[in-house]
């Protein structure tokens, strides 16, 4: 019976005029994701105070197991794994966020220009976008990184080059549907400038899609940076999660059984990506009523056997 009462309560909560932000604040997924993310950002900011000194300094305490002194043990070079991991969050989050924002920005520019101007501009921009979408990402990343001089800047530029196309395509199709709305036509007739229509009329109306794209781009940035660095194509002198994994592989942490060297960094990448996906799915749920909690499971009564009938209750309590 709880299944019947629950939706009505939810309905009353989500009255109109309460926008995306409010919806996210009442969404469990979004809150869990935001909490995880904030913890990592706090760690990244506090890293120099928590673990002062250079985390990659080589000491003679090599390959120690986790102990009260070194919570996550040490690497083959005697570096404290916890310090490496906490310091690594700085570079990883910085690159991830920079790449995320920059590729979303490029995506917005291309998508809006495509949708607003149409015709030849749309044709050519779409063509470029689709070509970039189709070129296999990681090999392109590798070959770009191999030719450009190594460094953090290169990593960021390369990730933006390979990452903007996906967001451009999504944003273009959304902008296209808004472009055909009456209020845009009204703005055009009243003689507003193109830039104003694109950024003041169209853009605010696709806020949720922009947000989803941004989150996706950040996830992409963090993951791709880690992959690139794991292959040894990043700036190996900086401390980041990807580089930690690169060194772990290089020093044979796997084969010598030092699991504590490679587990933390990978887990951190996964946790951040997971947190971002949670927020992303929450944005989807809040803005797309179809994906929200089930109203009355269609045809469920006819199909679901008696044994499965108890499961909806569990899903409501989460």
């Amino acid at each position: 019976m709880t299944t019947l009462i629950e939706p009505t309560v939810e309905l009353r909560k989500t009255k109109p005029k309460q926008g995306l932000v409010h919806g996210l604040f009442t969404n469990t997924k979004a809150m869990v994701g935001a909490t995880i993310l904030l913890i990592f950002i706090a760690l990244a900011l506090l890293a120099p105070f928590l673990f002062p000194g250079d985390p990659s300094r080589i000491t003679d305490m090599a390959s120690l197991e986790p102990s009260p002194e070194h919570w996550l043990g040490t690497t083959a070079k005697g570096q404290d794994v916890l310090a490496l991991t906490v310091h690594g969050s700085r570079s990883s989050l910085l690159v991830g966020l920079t790449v995320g924002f920059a590729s979303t920005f490029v995506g917005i520019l291309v998508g809006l220009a495509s949708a607003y101007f149409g015709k030849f501009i749309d044709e050519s921009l779409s063509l470029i976008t689709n070509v970039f979408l189709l070129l296999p990402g990681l090999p392109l990343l590798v070959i770009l990184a191999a030719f450009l001089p190594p460094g953090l800047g290169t990593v960021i530029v390369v990730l933006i080059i390979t990452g903007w196309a996906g967001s451009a395509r999504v944003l273009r199709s959304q902008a296209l549907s808004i472009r055909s709305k009456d209020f845009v036509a009204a703005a055009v007739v009243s003689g507003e400038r193109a830039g104003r229509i694109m950024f003041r009329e169209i853009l605010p109306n696709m806020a949720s899609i922009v947000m989803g794209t941004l989150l996706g781009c950040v996830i992409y940035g963090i993951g791709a940076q880690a992959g690139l660095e794991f292959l040894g194509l990043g700036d190996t002198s900086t401390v980041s999660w990807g580089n930690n994994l690169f060194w772990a592989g290089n020093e044979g942490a796997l084969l010598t059984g030092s699991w504590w060297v490679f587990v933390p960094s990978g887990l951190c990448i996964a946790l951040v990506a997971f947190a971002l996906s949670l927020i992303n799915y929450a944005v989807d749920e809040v803005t797309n009523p179809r994906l929200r909690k089930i109203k009355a499971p269609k045809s469920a009564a006819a199909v679901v056997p008696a044994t499965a009938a108890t499961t909806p209750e569990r899903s409501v309590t989460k």
Partner: protein
Amino acid sequence: MRFILRRLGFYLIAFWASITLNFLLPRFMPGDPVSRMFARTQGKMQPEQLDALRKLLGVDDRPIWEQYVDYLHNIVTGNMGISISRFPTPVTEVIAGQIGWTLLLGGTALVIAAVLGNLLGILAAWRRGGTIDSALPPILIFIGSFPYFWLAMGALYLFGVILGWAPLRHAFSDGLEPGFSWEFISDVGAHLVLPALTIVLVSVGGWMLGMRNTMIATNSEDYITMAEAKGLRPGRIMFRYAARNAMLPSVTSFGMSLGFVVGGAMLTEVVFAYPGVGYQLLTAVQGLDYPLMQGLFLTITAAVLIANFLVDILYVRLDPRVRSN
């Protein structure tokens, strides 16, 4: 037919773009690769190797458009230059020996992930709020958040090093003669399980969620209600009516995800030292083997483009709306 031709033209443009990128990169990048190469190899290079490198990097006096025409002609005729790290084997020969392994690994993983993910998505959408629908997505999203290679490392450590169930590296045991013997094939299979499994684990969630969301939209269509009203068996409605129409986006993403799988397979290959093109690409990068690097990139791109074209043809077969336009 017009649709197919348009797509073909698009893929040709995409391929041309990647060739041009290949041509321009070494010529316009900051810094000088030849001197970088010299510094790394410390003058141990043969004159012929140097010559091959010069040719690739465009260190000749001809005007650039002439070099470009020459380059295009070479690529079209399948001449990708000579590998530097495996001098004097032609690049095409090195690639030919390796692409099969990547196709095997990537193909197996992709097909299993797509079939499994779509099936789970269909079931999840059909019984919304059921066990599959509520329990699996969060787990799969979480697993999907892990970097490909990290999961591969973990699996290698757990099943290879600690439990000793799976072989640690390479595509088949050392000293085994490749051939169509039962021994060889089963050995290849044993080496394939772990790398393929990690790719499937990471990518199955995306398939499932995509399918689930389209399927939910399809389930609320009138023809589904009609089918139910006619009293058709649920299984028939689920697969023949709902899933069949919800399949189309999945078919498209099958083509798109090929590039992604090649990338994922690449990292997995590196972890397992699996002798595919991804592993070779990394070795080429480490050995500053620019011709091989470029050849591999072009080959991978071409493979992805061809696969996408095949998907397009399939799409025309599946969706009558495309045919009528």
